[in-house]
């Protein structure tokens, strides 16, 4: 085990780096798409049921199938990391649209009414009242999406791009346990670290949400 780490640490670190990028980039893209879509679904309630159905269907597509089909749709190489990024972005959007809608719905109507009555315009209301109050709910969804992405990236290894997942395929092919254990431990650690980072961000962003119960 130590022997493996001593000789292969550059490769392991490279796999870890790729894993972080492949897991996080889709979270950022997914959030950027889910925020406006979720806002629209919040503003125009009739959009919400169809959007929810589409998200659920998308989320139900098996990840391996999506990794295989995407190159055909996008015209990319099978080994292109873009496939993984697009696929995971789709999952993230599917998860977060609902979260954004729920978050905006968690803003008490009395608060939005009062904010409007003291002179907020619609954009200011969204950016300075509704979104900040929705942050705890949105970040809760973001934690799920992030951890789930960390785990899904590994599946990409079956296609040859999978960050830490490459360690699993490597171990399996060589019938060698060390890379597999390293991959599992690093995946779990990565998920834990990213999760705590989001929790930390939430503590900084929403000091008000922890004072409710005296």
């Amino acid at each position: 085990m130590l022997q493996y780490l001593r000789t292969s640490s550059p490769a392991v670190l490279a796999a870890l780096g790729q894993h972080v990028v492949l897991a996080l980039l889709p979270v950022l893209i997914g959030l950027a798409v889910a925020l406006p879509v979720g806002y629209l679904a919040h503003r125009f309630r009739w959009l919400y049921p169809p959007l929810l159905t589409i998200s659920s269907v998308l989320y139900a597509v098996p990840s391996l199938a999506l990794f295989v089909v995407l190159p055909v749709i996008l015209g990319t190489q099978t080994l292109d990391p873009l496939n993984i990024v697009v696929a995971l972005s789709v999952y993230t959007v599917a998860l977060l649209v609902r979260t954004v809608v729920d978050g905006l719905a968690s803003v008490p109507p009395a608060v939005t009414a009062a904010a409007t009555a003291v002179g907020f315009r619609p954009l200011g209301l969204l950016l300075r009242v509704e979104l900040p109050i929705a942050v705890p709910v949105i970040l809760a969804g973001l934690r799920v999406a992030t951890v789930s992405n960390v785990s899904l990236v590994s599946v990409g290894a079956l296609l040859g791009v999978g960050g830490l997942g490459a360690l699993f395929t490597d171990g399996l092919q060589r019938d060698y346990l060390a890379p597999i254990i390293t991959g599992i431990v690093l995946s779990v650690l990565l998920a834990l670290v990213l999760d705590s980072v989001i929790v930390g961000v939430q503590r900084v962003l929403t000091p008000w949400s922890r004072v409710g119960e005296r």
Partner: protein
Amino acid sequence: MITFTAVTKRFPDGTVAVDDLTLDLPEGKITVFVGPSGCGKTTSLRMINRMVEPTSGQVLVQGRDVMEQDPAELRRGIGYVIQTAGLLPHRTVVDNIATVPYLLGWDKKRARSTALELLERVGLPAAYAKRYPAQLSGGQQQRVGVARALAAGPPIMLVDEPFSAVGPVVRAQLQAEFLRLQQDLGKTIAFVTHDIDEAVKLGDVVAVFHQGGHLAQVDTPEQLLAAPANDFVADFVGRDRGIRRLGFRLADSLPVQPVDAPRDSEWVLDLDDRGRPRGWSRRGVTASMQSGGGTFTTADSLRTVLDLTLTSPAGVAVRVDQHGVADGTVDHAAIAAHIQDDPIRAAR
């Protein structure tokens, strides 16, 4: 200052909330909109800052039609206080108070120092500035709501059932402080309540709304109690309006008997060596002045004096001067006779 001219509000479902309302709100005064639920009082209030837009007719604020103004700008110029306080849960108390100054683009320092001044003015310690609304009681949140409405110094304030969610003791306290603030500030205030006692206590003018946004009567509180325009108003102001109305009349012209005048009672007024009343006594039984009714001055209302005569064992209220020295007594018969000479009653 605020004028409704033939204003009607018909909602898309066909409900007419306000029907042909014409009303002037005098400058620098509190005009109370009072009435049962569904009478259109809140809808009328919300048409002043365009939270509701009239179907027809005109609402003028400082001479300008509200429909010709940018809604956000209009609202920033009008203080707004609502029942649940409606504070922003993610902002501290000081930032909540400074909401409108921030929206108006004041620099942060000036906005905050104004907010801190107001915090003190509404009776909250400066230490509360950094707290969040969830850390305050309902009454404290309501004070912050009032401070927020005042922050940008608007000449007009809209106040919608601000004290109905707090207990009776805190409510009475907040009402008294509200009146004290208004004495200093002289804002033009539209105040909505369903509580006729609150209306009569706070209003310079009371507009009684009937179902469907019809005005039943617009009058001073005393006149409303003395001369309800119709059965609806009489019913709404309640059965004890005669007694409540005495709350508006000072005891300054009430004739009194000398303290040592003979009375049809065995109770004797005990005075200390300076002539200040200590209590009542009868055949060795004594009652202190506190338990035996108490005393009044010419600054008290006839309602207070009448109440004193009912709680005093001798059936007599004792008037004192500014040094607390007894200078006269009065019984209920004398109060009744005094009310008989009432100019309002005589006029009708």
